[in-house]
């Protein structure tokens, strides 16, 4: 039993061991050790360990939250080591990473938080907060993004083609804490976008007008046009009744009447009686003949059939209504063009680091 558990443990370790996982575990270990050294006032060791950890996380492109915790301890350690410039550089890097970050005042003393605040106020950068995937109707929708500023600054928000030329400016002006920018999916001339990729670039400027930072977010675009509904099939002949009488009924009346008259007239001969007056037979045959003539007139070929014409008109009206409904639906669908926006990862074009 114990041997089986040991093998299971080895198997679990083998399955769970990956380079990335090992690097994260090592970084966590560095953080714990570095923070312990910081709390033991061994700032040199703390700075060494935390800088190494920052380098590992940067190389691994770790999430901002994971990198920020180590950087604030690193900045504090550098500050207490008397390397204020290094501390300022670390804090600036932290602000660039996450303009919304604030050190915990219960953990760090005012010396640290005041230096951080000073750096934050001088650093002009923004964070772009957008949903990963957005779908907007071209007619009336808008793609929305939030800019969160590190401090009061002037920003210009521009959509660029991939080659860097301007597609459409979205905003130029001051930003205090945050700002919502909108884009209606059209270019500067009001036409729907026809390219499948744009860059959302935010340029932060210092009060002097000097460019402080550039942040760029790739946007993958896809125009979605719904298919139009197919038109109803044309009316088949089998769906319509004949509007003119065929000759079958008239012919049947004529032939049937002639046959019946002949049968009446020749009945005495058929039964073997040869001396029978013809008056009664002729009277009956004449009655049959009159009925036959009336029947032929009533069922004469090519006469119009009003009942069938009315029925066919109803069928045609129903078909026209179906066509009109499809036309209206297709008109609605043609205007229902949607723009799908997939946002990539933001990247700093020009950022200073420690």
């Amino acid at each position, binding site marked *: 039993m114990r041997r089986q558990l040991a093998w299971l443990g080895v198997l679990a370790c083998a399955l769970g061991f990956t380079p990335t996982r090992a690097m994260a575990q090592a970084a966590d270990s560095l953080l714990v050790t570095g923070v312990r050294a910081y709390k033991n006032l061994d700032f040199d060791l703390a700075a060494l360990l935390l800088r190494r950890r920052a380098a590992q996380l940067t190389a691994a492109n770790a999430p901002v939250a994971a990198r920020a915790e180590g950087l604030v301890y690193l900045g504090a350690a550098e500050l207490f080591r008397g390397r204020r410039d290094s501390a300022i550089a670390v804090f600036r890097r932290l602000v660039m990473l996450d303009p919304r970050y604030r050190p915990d005042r219960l953990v760090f003393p005012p010396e640290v938080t005041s230096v951080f605040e000073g750096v934050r106020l001088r650093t002009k950068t923004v964070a772009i907060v957008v949903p990963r995937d957005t779908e907007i109707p071209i007619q009336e929708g808008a793609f929305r993004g939030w800019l969160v500023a590190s401090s009061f600054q002037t920003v210009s928000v521009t959509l660029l083609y991939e080659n860097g030329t301007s597609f459409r400016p979205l905003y130029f002006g001051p930003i205090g804490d945050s700002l919502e920018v909108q884009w209606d999916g059209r270019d500067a001339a009001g036409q729907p976008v026809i390219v499948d990729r744009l860059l959302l670039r935010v340029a932060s400027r210092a009060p002097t007008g000097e460019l402080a930072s550039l942040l760029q977010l790739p946007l993958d675009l896809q125009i979605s046009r719904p298919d139009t509904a197919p038109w109803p099939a044309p009316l088949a002949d089998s769906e319509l009744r004949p509007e003119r009488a065929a000759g079958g009924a008239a012919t*049947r009346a004529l032939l049937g009447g002639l046959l*019946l008259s002949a049968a009446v007239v020749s009945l*005495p001969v058929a039964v073997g009686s040869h001396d*029978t007056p013809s008056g009664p*037979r002729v009277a009956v045959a004449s009655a*049959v003949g009159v009925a036959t003539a009336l*029947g032929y007139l009533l069922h004469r070929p090519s006469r119009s059939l009003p009942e069938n014409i009315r029925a066919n008109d109803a069928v045609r009206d129903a078909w026209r209504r179906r066509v009109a409904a499809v036309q209206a639906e297709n008109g609605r669908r043609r205007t229902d063009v949607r723009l799908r926006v997939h946002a990539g990862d933001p990247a700093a074009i020009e950022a200073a680091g420690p």
Partner: protein
Amino acid sequence: MRIGWLLSLAVAVGAGRLPGQRFHTAAAASVVTARVRTEQLGGAAQFSGAAFGAGGTLSLGRFQVGLTYLQGRLDPDTGSARARDLVEGAVLLGVRPVEWLTLSCGPHARAYAASGQTQRWLFWEVRVRAAKPFIGSAVRGYAELWRAVAADANVPEPFDHAQGGEAGMIIRLARAPLEGRIGYRIDHAVLGGGTRLETVDGVVIGVGLAWR
């Protein structure tokens, strides 16, 4: 004997699929301008007059039974013979192997009564009747032929053969059960090797009710 065979044949023909199991009834009244001509030993006597009749049929599926009764007075057209009464009746059992064709058989009795003497005729008949609409569904033409397979008459001459028929049309208006009928009918009997010929013919005009 032959009638038994014919009845067996009718039952066999009708024993197949029965398309409808509901009873259908029809009743009709008619007037017949009857003419009776008797040729015997080179002489001929002819009587004519109007007769009134009634009849009805009851159908179940392909089978049907029909009753007819006719009565009238015939006056002599020539000579000094006395007028006589005509009474006629028939009971026919029938089967329809197809929609438009009816085979039937049964007794057909006829009597002439004059001054206390009655001449009776009894025919055992086999009938074939065809009927089919020929002007839309409103006018149906029909033709019927019958032949006596046996007969009995209280006349001196022995019975030789007899046959007859009827043809005409039935007009049915719209969807009402009311029908009108006009036709021509004739019976011809030969007795004594042709020494006596009996012919009855006339125009039949009738109205009827048929529930389908």
